[in-house]
């Protein structure tokens, strides 16, 4: 009975549910998921380009190409402390594979990201750039790596937060720090050499890869290898932690 069709239908229905729940009582729906990174782009543009006068070409496009994939990552991680709590009534009533819940959530955020790619293209046109052919394999590849990484972290955070509820606060602070320690609003080339550790924070290589892919269609092997390494690590730990803790979910919810 638990065959592929079962998982396909389950993931479909749960992802659809996540989207519906997210847009309940909002009129503008999809546009909210674009507005947020765009607003951030405006803030950083004013702060760094206009006030601090950073010496960079196409800074707006640069910001957008990094902020959109980050938004997916950050949305999923920030929502993970509450994703199991929000589905408590399902978990307490039916025995089904619990990891489908964080899976559907990350998938839902991924879909929003994919739907926001046209906005990036729009800005590229404004800056007289054209999408590259390498997107055809580059985008699916990076989607896969980022999905694995985000899903793994979500498994850890969502399960752990049921036992230690202040994980949610910790996640908030962690994500804020990680955002500034990831080369998104500044190029990695500006990082002083004694601080090259910034290149090795979990999302750095991935976000740099996204931006290079969007801005000039290039994929760099080293960055790919590092981000894939982090995804595998995140996914394996997440899988183990979740498997161990999920037996107790019915009791602590």
């Amino acid at each position, binding site marked *: 009975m638990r065959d592929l069709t079962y998982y396909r239908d389950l993931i479909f229905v749960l992802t659809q*549910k996540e989207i519906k729940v997210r847009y309940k009582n909002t009129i503008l729906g999809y546009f909210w998921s674009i507005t947020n990174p765009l607003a951030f782009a405006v803030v950083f543009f004013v702060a760094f380009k206009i006030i601090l006068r950073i010496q960079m070409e196409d800074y707006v496009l640069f910001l957008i190409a990094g902020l959109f994939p980050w938004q997916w990552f950050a949305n999923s991680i920030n929502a993970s402390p509450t994703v199991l709590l929000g589905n408590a009534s*399902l978990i307490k009533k039916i025995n089904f594979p619990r990891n489908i819940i964080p899976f559907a959530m990350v998938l839902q955020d991924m879909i929003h990201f994919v739907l926001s790619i046209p906005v990036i293209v729009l800005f590229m046109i404004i800056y007289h750039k054209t999408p590259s052919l390498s997107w055809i394999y580059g985008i699916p590849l990076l989607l896969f790596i980022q999905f694995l990484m985000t899903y793994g972290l979500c498994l850890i955070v969502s399960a752990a937060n049921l036992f230690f509820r202040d994980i949610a606060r910790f996640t908030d602070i962690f994500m804020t720090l990680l955002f500034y320690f990831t080369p998104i609003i500044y190029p990695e080339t500006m990082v002083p050499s004694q601080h090259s550790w910034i290149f090795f924070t979990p999302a750095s290589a991935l976000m740099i890869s996204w931006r290079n892919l969007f801005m000039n269609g290039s994929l760099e092997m080293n960055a790919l290898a590092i981000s894939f390494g982090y995804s595998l690590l995140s996914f394996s730990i997440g899988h183990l932690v979740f498997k161990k803790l999920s037996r107790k979910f*019915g009791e602590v919810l």
Partner: protein
Amino acid sequence: MSEPVILLENVSKQYTLYRHIAGGLKQFLFNLPTSIRTVRNSQFEALADISFEVQRGETVGIIGKNGSGKSTTLGLIAGVITPSKGRVVTQGRISPLLELGGGFHHDLTGRENIILSGVLLGLRRAEVLLKMEEIVEFADIGDFIDQPIRVYSSGMLARLGFSMVATLDPEILLIDEILAVGDLNFQQKCMDRMMTFKKSGVTMVFVSHRMEDVLKMCDRVVWIEDHRIRQQGAAGEVVERYLQTH
């Protein structure tokens, strides 16, 4: 032809009272030795050494006072709780736990909840859609079916819950007190439907405080008191003893 579809063998269930931890990571870490001791000692025994089986097509009632462990037993059968000791074996598609104030996702409409729970139960999405009208008709809650279920009354939730489960072709049905909130008309409808199930060979486990329902529905009864089985056997016999001591 009797074969157990539900088997509980020397099942014990201790709950760890996680309140200490949920209170905060700081408190937990600053008093680590004490914390670990508190967690170890703050076990609450919900069930001790429970053994019984339910044969295919049988209807078994579980009776006992509040807090005696009836709902934990149902949770174990449903597979949403894992036993601390012993084993629980089930065969066949188990309905979601039907209980008071049930319902699934509060921001989704009745219809959306029907699809969600059908698929969670293991049905194909297409199959659920085919049965949609039948479920809606059985629930009989009018236009509320397209409203988010957070605006439902407890009676409406019970109607929706029972209709879903009743129509989605269950093999094992677990029912926890759901009939208590519906109006008489709906209670009658549920009892009729359950009688039909009984005749068609659906296995049912039924928790109730209304002994006349238990007597009417159940072949056998398990009486749980103070987290242990006090008596199990033919429905009439056990209920009679139970009523004498209360």
